[in-house]
């Protein structure tokens, strides 16, 4: 008798009775994880503080401007080699070559966006920029503190960032030039809008109805894909997407690459970073293999790759890897008291 491996596996495994899954436990763990992602630094206490501030504002206290308490300057940092923004949630945050106790930067979370000019984040529903000087700038002083704060996205082709804001009750997506500190364009949106990407001045916006592109130069808005398609990342004209291929792909001014929803593109759009030290090419070229194998990866603001792997004896070690050489330099240890290492701006 010739034994077929497929038959053996099915015979054995199909007979296994799966235990009933603990859905309540999964949901509870998932909620804890989601909270931890939101509040990288401060845990439940910070969440509660934000909620209290928000509640006071909505209660008609006469001053709906969120306080700037807790946004004091933290001293200068060095962003020349990228922000190198990573954290042990609830314990320590590494940023610009410095290490802070989590309580010092308790407003940073994975919804924040690391840019070459600093970290764009929301405090009290209003977008702010933690600058290299260590000071926090209010990007939209006239904005209202609301719950519309889509994750900001950064343009790898220019000094642009896209964020959400509410003014006079209207939700808007704003693209700002961080170099000149001027608003490039504003666009009214519905409150369920998510900013999926920003590339070359084009913003990818998603609602339940699907994804559209907004060209901030011409102001033109075009449909890009239906609701089942998810744009994971866009860099240098390359769109990494999951789900069905966008309609009429030949007419789109982008190079489309199918990939995982939690993957990232390198800044030049040439390679895909996806849970591996091997970055696959998008254009049929050669893969990039990083010197170190790690568990967690993120593209840093200078285009290098941050890699965090668990260390012998506990904790983690973080490396900064150049592309395309793949050469990695150890940045140092990271505690893991709060769980897995996290990168600011990476929420998967």
């Amino acid at each position, binding site marked *: *008798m*010739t*034994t*077929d*491996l*497929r*038959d*053996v*596996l*099915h*015979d*054995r*495994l199909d007979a*296994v009775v*799966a*235990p009933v*899954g*603990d*859905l309540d*436990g*999964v*949901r*509870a*763990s*998932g*909620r*804890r*994880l*989601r*909270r931890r*992602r939101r509040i990288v630094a401060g*845990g*439940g*206490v910070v*969440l*509660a503080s934000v909620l209290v501030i928000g509640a006071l504002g909505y209660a008609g206290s006469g001053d709906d401007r969120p306080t700037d308490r807790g946004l004091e300057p933290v001293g200068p940092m060095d962003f020349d080699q990228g922000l190198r923004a990573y954290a042990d949630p609830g314990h320590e945050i590494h940023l610009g070559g410095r290490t802070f106790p989590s309580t010092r930067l308790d407003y940073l979370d994975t919804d924040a966006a690391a840019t070459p000019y600093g970290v764009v984040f929301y405090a009290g529903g209003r977008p702010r920029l933690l600058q290299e000087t260590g000071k926090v700038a209010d990007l939209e002083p006239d904005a209202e503190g609301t719950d519309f704060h889509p994750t900001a996205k950064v343009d790898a082709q220019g000094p642009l960032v896209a964020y959400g804001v509410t003014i006079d009750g209207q939700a808007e997506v704003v693209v700002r030039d961080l170099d000149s500190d001027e608003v490039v364009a504003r666009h009214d949106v519905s409150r369920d809008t998510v900013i999926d990407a920003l590339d070359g001045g084009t913003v990818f916006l998603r609602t339940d109805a699907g994804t559209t592109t907004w060209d901030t130069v011409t102001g033109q808005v075009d449909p890009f894909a239906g*609701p*089942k*398609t*998810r744009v994971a990342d866009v860099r240098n004209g390359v769109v990494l997407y*999951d*789900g*069905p291929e966008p309609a009429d792909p030949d007419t789109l001014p982008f190079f489309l690459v199918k990939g*995982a*929803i*939690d993957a990232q593109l390198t800044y030049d759009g040439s390679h895909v970073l*996806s*849970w*591996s030290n*091997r970055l696959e090419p998008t254009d049929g070229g050669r893969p990039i293999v990083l010197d*170190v*194998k790690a*568990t967690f990866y993120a593209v840093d603001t200078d285009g290098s790759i941050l890699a965090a*792997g*668990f*260390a*012998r004896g506990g904790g983690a070690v973080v490396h900064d890897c150049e592309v395309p050489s793949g050469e990695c330099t150890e940045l140092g240890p990271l505690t893991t008291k709060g769980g*897995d290492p996290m990168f600011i701006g990476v*929420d*998967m």
Partner: protein
Amino acid sequence: MDALADRAEQDAATTPVTEEFDEFFRATWPRLFRTAYAVAGDAASAEDALQVAYARAYASWRRIRSVDHPEAYVRRIVVNEIIGTRRRGWWQRERPHASPEPPGSVASPELGVVDRAAVWEAVRTLPPRQRAVIVLRYYEDLSEQEIAAALGCSAGTVKSQASAALANLRRRAAELSNGEPA
């Protein structure tokens, strides 16, 4: 405070989106459990890995719910959880094992005239990464590309791991059939 926040979120949690997650969980759990069990070798480890993976999926559900195969997302976390990248650390990752036969010499899962129980036992003795490749290929029927995506490696690595695994299976299954100790 965590409990209060948890309660507050729980109260607000019954939405069509979370109901959709619940449906996904119930529909995919049994099959993924079997896959996890095959890769892990024991039920407790399989269940632990699934709990972690589904919790991650729940935390990101609004983002991943519309992708083509949310199951692939969960499967990837499960398999990587089991083969140890997270628990044992990267320095303990399995190194490639020397293949008793040159890569590519075993092109088919036909393992010869051996006892089925011996084949199953041989699968269980494979190194975790090779076992994962075999299970994903011949139980989940994934392509090399899909396995590569799940394991975070290249299709070429999948091919060589599969080749080495099949060679190991042939050898071990034959040994076990002949009554040699495991």
